[in-house]
């Protein structure tokens, strides 16, 4: 391993500019003559728009134009789409209702944009917006997913009777039913996987500019996948042909999934830029983000686990209602199905699984992928069940897990996933040892002396990363195969521009991708410049989400580097007057095997461009190669997290007092960055379990619509984390990478709730386990105990 190569904990190259305020985010970009756009949003969850009076507003100072939903609809642009078709049990396609960028006729959630004001300044746009009079007829709203399909619930979209988008299922119903009939023990739990508001540090933003001369549109956009944004906006919405639309995703300050999707705001900005022939900028305010960024999770689930007399798991039954909100966001259909139910086998050999998922519309903000996307929900189901089963059977939860782990690979699960490699026992064992699991009893007694209740919980999670093999996801209804691209452009001096279709918004690609290239070519990482996020510069790519950039994006880079090396060897053979097969490339030098004749990387690069006396029939001048990599399978990172909590029974406060994470991410490029990803993921998972409470009242108002009421995790909500790794290489990609971006957020909620329920001695508490919720649970338990005495 070199000092900066694969496996080296190199400091992030990009951090200097970020932490010194030199980053360039969308809102930092300004264009001459720029106007500002303000979105008038529905204050009601469900309301007919009877009339919009814009007359007074139109005469306000600075107003460039005002457009209502109905007026925008006259442009005949396409609706926003959900790109992944899910079929119901009966084979019928999902009921996708139209999602216009601006609501027409009625608003379906608080925050649904109904009109826009474009003005010289933002303040002027806001002033004018206040003078727009929208005459709403308030309709009854439904926010609870378990009531959405029920009798008496208001119908949100005509296209979806009973507000039901699909009734999907996976697995073998009859075989699973039989497994339960033959079970010795059944553990049944009901839980809510709480809705989360993403809250990336940089709010979403868009700046659109139209060049009337060339009829080109340019969009600066805080997005995780500029190329897909361009494709959807061009091919489905129909704003402009792809060759007339450039999407630039400059520095992006966090996404966590929420910036994957194609939203109304960027579409309207593009349209308005051309309509008014002015650059148009929009940057969300935080309170606007709360009601317009796609939310995450929001499942209500009943699940049962069957075990035989030998404590082997024989079956799993799951019934989930997934709330997709008022409209289907870009990937929303896939999250509670293919990204959720296919992971319900967890790390266990479960012969029979049957899962049903009903997706419903409600009068809430749309729900889509959020860090982990379906896999935290699946892990929560499986890991809470296994832990509860161990308690009911009076077994050590670690032992019950070991007994049921998948031990031989490849392993075909009952829910489509084919696990390729792993050693679940190894990560569990290592975690037990690092955590001092044996010492828990002693620590618990010490806590008791201080009036505290200590609990411990596990999450031996699995996830599927590296989205996505086109052949597999195509069969599953994906509208697009999620391969990745890379272009390695060698400059005449030997430095390199690496163009990737991935996009970094916190992941550190400028460092890790450079580490790979530097190691392969024997150059310094400072000689590698990673270029991403601009459709005019970079070949088509799929962006970054689902922990895919290492496994898929770097595999594409490897392929491109292979091509570069192959061509470079040809050139070396020419320069050294040797046979191509005799050229060895090592440590930045091309050598004729068995001789001291060599040419250094830099000399070779120069020669490639000077092309002196090249046999141009065999070797073209230049050194630049492009590759596209389509994975053959998902990757399956897995690991064991142990959480230890201490509860203050007087106040209900849960303190996370210990955390051990042992993850198997396959090959690790930069352990420091990977550890950071684990830290961030765990923090988000702890946030979901303890703090983040998205509350809608019955009329559909988001009660927790600001940081005054919505608690994000802070540093002091977490202890020092013990992070370690085990490694089994992923066999399906050349580097053996599995992916690490979501693991913490996937493992943590289950680990925390297993620890809390262990401490309290009841399974009946939902996330977030706020102090008030824990205190109420303790009061309830005390009452029950008193009644029993």
């Amino acid at each position, binding site marked *: 391993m070199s000092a900066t190569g694969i496996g080296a904990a190199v400091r992030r190259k990009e951090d200097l500019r970020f932490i010194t305020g030199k980053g360039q985010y969308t809102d930092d970009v300004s264009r001459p003559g720029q106007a500002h756009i303000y979105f008038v949003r529905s204050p009601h969850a469900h309301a007919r728009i009877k009339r919009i009076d814009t007359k007074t507003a139109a005469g306000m100072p600075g107003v460039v134009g005002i457009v209502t939903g109905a007026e925008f609809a006259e442009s005949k642009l396409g609706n926003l789409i959900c790109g992944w078709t899910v079929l119901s049990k009966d084979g019928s396609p999902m009921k996708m209702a139209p999602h216009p960028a601006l609501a027409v006729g009625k608003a379906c959630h608080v925050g649904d944009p109904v009109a826009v004001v474009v003005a010289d300044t933002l*303040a002027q746009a*806001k*002033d004018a917006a206040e003078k727009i009079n929208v005459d709403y007829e308030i309709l009854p709203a439904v926010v609870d997913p378990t009531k959405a399909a029920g009798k008496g619930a208001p119908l949100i979209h005509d296209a979806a009777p009973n507000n039901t988008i699909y009734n999907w299922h996976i697995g073998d119903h009859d075989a699973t039913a039989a497994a339960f009939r033959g079970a010795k023990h059944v553990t049944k739990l009901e839980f809510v996987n709480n809705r989360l508001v993403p809250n990336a540090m940089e709010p979403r933003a868009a700046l659109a500019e139209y060049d009337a001369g060339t009829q080109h549109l340019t969009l600066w956009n805080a997005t995780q996948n500029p190329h897909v944004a361009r494709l959807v906006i061009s091919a489905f919405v129909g704003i402009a042909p792809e060759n007339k639309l450039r999407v630039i995703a400059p520095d992006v300050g966090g996404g966590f999934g929420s910036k994957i999707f194609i939203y109304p705001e960027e579409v309207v900005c593009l349209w308005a830029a051309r309509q008014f022939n002015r650059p148009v900028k929009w940057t969300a305010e935080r*309170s606007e983000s709360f009601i317009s960024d796609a939310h995450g999770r929001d499942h209500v689930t009943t699940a049962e686990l069957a075990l035989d007399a030998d404590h082997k798991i024989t079956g799993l039954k799951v019934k989930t209602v997934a709330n997709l909100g008022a409209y289907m966001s870009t990937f929303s259909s896939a999250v509670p199905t293919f990204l959720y139910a296919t992971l319900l086998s967890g790390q266990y050999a479960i012969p029979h699984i049957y899962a049903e998922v009903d997706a419903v519309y409600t009068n809430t903000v749309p729900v889509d992928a959020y860090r982990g996307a379906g896999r935290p929900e699946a892990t929560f189901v499986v890991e809470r069940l296994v832990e509860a089963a161990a308690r009911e059977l009076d077994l050590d939860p670690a032992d019950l897990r070991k007994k049921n782990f998948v031990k031989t690979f490849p392993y075909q699960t009952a829910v489509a996933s084919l696990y390729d490699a792993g050693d679940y026992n190894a990560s569990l064992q290592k975690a037990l040892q690092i955590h001092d699991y044996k010492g828990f009893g002693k620590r618990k007694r010490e806590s008791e002396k201080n009036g505290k209740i200590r609990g411990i919980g596990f999450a031996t999670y699995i996830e599927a990363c590296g989205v996505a093999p086109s052949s597999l996801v195509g069969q599953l209804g994906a509208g697009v195969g999620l391969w990745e691209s890379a272009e390695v452009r060698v400059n005449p001096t030997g430095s390199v521009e690496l163009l990737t279709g991935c996009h970094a918004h916190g992941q550190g690609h400028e460092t890790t991708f450079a580490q790979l290239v530097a190691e392969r070519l024997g150059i310094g990482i400072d000689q590698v410049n990673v270029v991403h996020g601009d459709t005019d510069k970079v070949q088509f790519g799929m962006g970054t989400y689902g922990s895919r950039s290492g496994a898929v994006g770097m595999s594409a880079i490897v392929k491109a580097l292979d091509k570069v090396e192959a061509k470079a060897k040809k050139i070396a053979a020419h320069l050294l007057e040797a046979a191509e097969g005799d050229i060895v490339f090592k440590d930045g030098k091309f050598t004729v095997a068995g001789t001291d004749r060599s040419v250094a990387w830099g000399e070779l690069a120069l020669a490639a461009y000077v092309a002196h006396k090249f046999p141009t029939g065999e070797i073209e001048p230049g050194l630049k190669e492009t590759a596209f990599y389509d994975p053959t399978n998902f990757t399956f990172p897995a690991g064991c997290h142990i959480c230890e909590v201490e509860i203050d029974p*007087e*106040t*209900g406060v849960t303190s996370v007092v210990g955390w051990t994470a042992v993850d198997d991410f396959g090959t690790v490029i930069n352990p420091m960055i990977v550890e950071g990803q684990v830290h961030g993921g765990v923090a988000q998972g702890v946030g979901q379990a*303890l*703090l983040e*409470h998205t*509350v809608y009242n019955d009329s559909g108002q988001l*009660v*927790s619509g600001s*940081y*005054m*009421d*919505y*608690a*994000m995790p802070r540093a002091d909500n977490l202890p020092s984390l013990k992070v370690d790794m085990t490694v089994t290489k992923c066999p399906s990609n050349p580097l053996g990478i599995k992916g690490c971006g979501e693991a913490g957020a996937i493992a943590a909620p289950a680990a925390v709730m297993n620890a809390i329920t262990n401490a309290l001695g009841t399974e009946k508490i939902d996330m977030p386990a*706020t*102090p*008030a919720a824990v*205190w*109420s649970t303790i009061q309830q338990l005390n009452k029950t105990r008193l009644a029993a005495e």
Partner: protein
Amino acid sequence: MYAFTYHRATGLRHAANLLEKLEDPKILAGGQTLLPTMKQRLASPTNLIDLDKVEGMSEITAAGRSVTIGALTRHNDVHKSPIVQQAIPALAYLAGLIGDPAVRHRGTIGGSVANNDPNADYPAACLALGATIVTNKRKIAADEFFKGLFETALEPNEIITKITFPVPKKAGYYKFRNQASRFALVGVFVAKRPSEIRVAVTGAGSSGVFRVPSFEEALKKRFSPKSLEGLTIPADGMASDIHGSAEYRAHLVNVCARRAVAAADEKTPAE
């Protein structure tokens, strides 16, 4: 934010004059509540009178058995003041719990007291310590000052200039934070004064800061957390929201009071 006219007061009298004559005026001290509220267009004063450059209003002095803190004193300066730390350590401790470092370096004691946010910390300290709120016109006892949610005894043209705190024999504060805002969900300030014991509660009440006579009685017999064990206050009159029911808040008042008494008994309160 709506447009407004900004006035920089050069002295207290200037500020008072502006306050008298301008239409729809508002005093700006540290601005940690006012400015965010204006940004959200929830407040729209026509005229903003900035006290920032007014001199002589951010001093902390000790005289006899009292400590006087100028109204423009930043929370961080109260927190770090050797005078306050020595005379009323619980008050210095409380100031260090307000908001975050940015808020503590801008926000002022006068602004906080004048705003009387039902979840703010200072009102509990003022009420428990029997503070006197001094304005450009008069002196107001804390008992008479806090009138409900965001309401005080201040007249429209009155400006707080300083607050005088009698030094207690001992005092303690315990804050149970709202996890999101980190304001006090419940905060209890307990003061053992030469003549009486006071227990003041912020955060919990549906009409702002209040005292708990039954707790005060019990502590008079013996100033110990044990004296409060088993005592309850009714959930009636407690606030109730997504962060906690009225019952939970009523329960926390007792927990926080006991912890505040325990803190008062410690030689040096926790940082």
